[in-house]
């Protein structure tokens, strides 16, 4: 289970970077960055998970609910998800602006048109 859990983190990060390197379209590239970024959230939550743990919300629990999972990691990942979306939007605004100036979204053509 550990191998699967941490393997998926490494895979997501690498596959996101692969998408960034091989992308032919800046909009596609920005979404690939967000895939790589989601690997951090998955890793944080995996570190905080505990087998059989319940959510760190102490409402309507049975008498002996057992251990709760790590709430610190959840707090870290929670803000990251929303702020990450805003940063993705900032990158997307840059892509729109690049298209206006250069008339293309292909990073390779950008290099060729620069004077």
């Amino acid at each position, binding site marked *: *289970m*550990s191998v699967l*859990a*941490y393997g998926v*983190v*490494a895979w997501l*990060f*690498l596959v996101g*970077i*692969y998408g960034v*390197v*091989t992308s032919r379209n800046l909009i596609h590239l920005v979404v690939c960055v967000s895939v790589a970024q989601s690997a951090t959230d998955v890793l944080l939550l*995996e*570190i*905080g*998970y*505990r*087998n059989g*743990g319940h*959510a*760190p*919300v*102490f*409402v309507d629990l049975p008498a002996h609910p057992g*251990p*709760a*999972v*790590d*709430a*610190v*990691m*959840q*707090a*870290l990942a*929670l*803000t*990251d*998800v*929303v*702020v990450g*979306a*805003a*940063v993705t*939007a*900032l990158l*997307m*605004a*840059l892509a*729109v*602006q690049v298209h*206006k100036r250069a008339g293309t979204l292909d990073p*390779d053509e950008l290099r060729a048109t620069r004077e």
Partner: protein
Amino acid sequence: MSRRARLMFFAVAAAALAVTLGVGLAGLPSFGSQVSAYARMLNEVSGRQRHVTDVVSAITFDYRGIDTLFEEFILLGAVTGISVLLRPLSDETRQLPEDKAPDRGIPPPSPAVWLLAVFLSSLLVLTGLETVTHGTLTPGGGFQGGVILASALYVVYLGTNYRTVERYQPDALLESSDGVGAFGYVFIGLLGLMAGDVFLTNVVGLGVTGNPISGGIIPLLNLTVGLEVAGGFAILASEFLDQTAVIRTKTGPR
């Protein structure tokens, strides 16, 4: 660098990165075996200390409140950056929205769609407010509720047209809610200093655990964050919408 050379370079770098990641991840405790002592302690004490039932809110807005302050300013910075990047440039004009242009008439949405949009957006506002205000009790809070609140505006656009959104979307209000949200967080933090304690100390009365108003500054901070996120995401959407709907490059040579 040719595409081939770049791919080769990536293969080497990715292999090195994969090995490093593998070594690092192998050093972690096995999945699901333990949680940190810090988290165990917070799970234990936060109900008694802060009178909240959702420990994640207590950590986000109280125990680690300063982290959230910086996160909020990253958000503010990103939204400001988008506004600057997507402003109308000197060689661009604002033209009549296409769905009202005489040569390209798009039929107006049917009253049924319009009604559905009104119904759905009011439902979204209600859900958003519920999520923001119940952050101390159950999962939810300013970050999630703020995005839901902002999405109410998107639904109005989907169901009607650009004109209607422009009429019902006061830009000044959105921008000030973004700023007021961000600096309201700082102000609530300063309350701790005014009480003679450290920044972001929970100095407001804690209330009864399980009540919607409990946890001292935690619901207040949830409100300010909700205000900021709602304003920020609404501005973000309206900037992109402006670009798509009305901002056009002037024709002719630059």
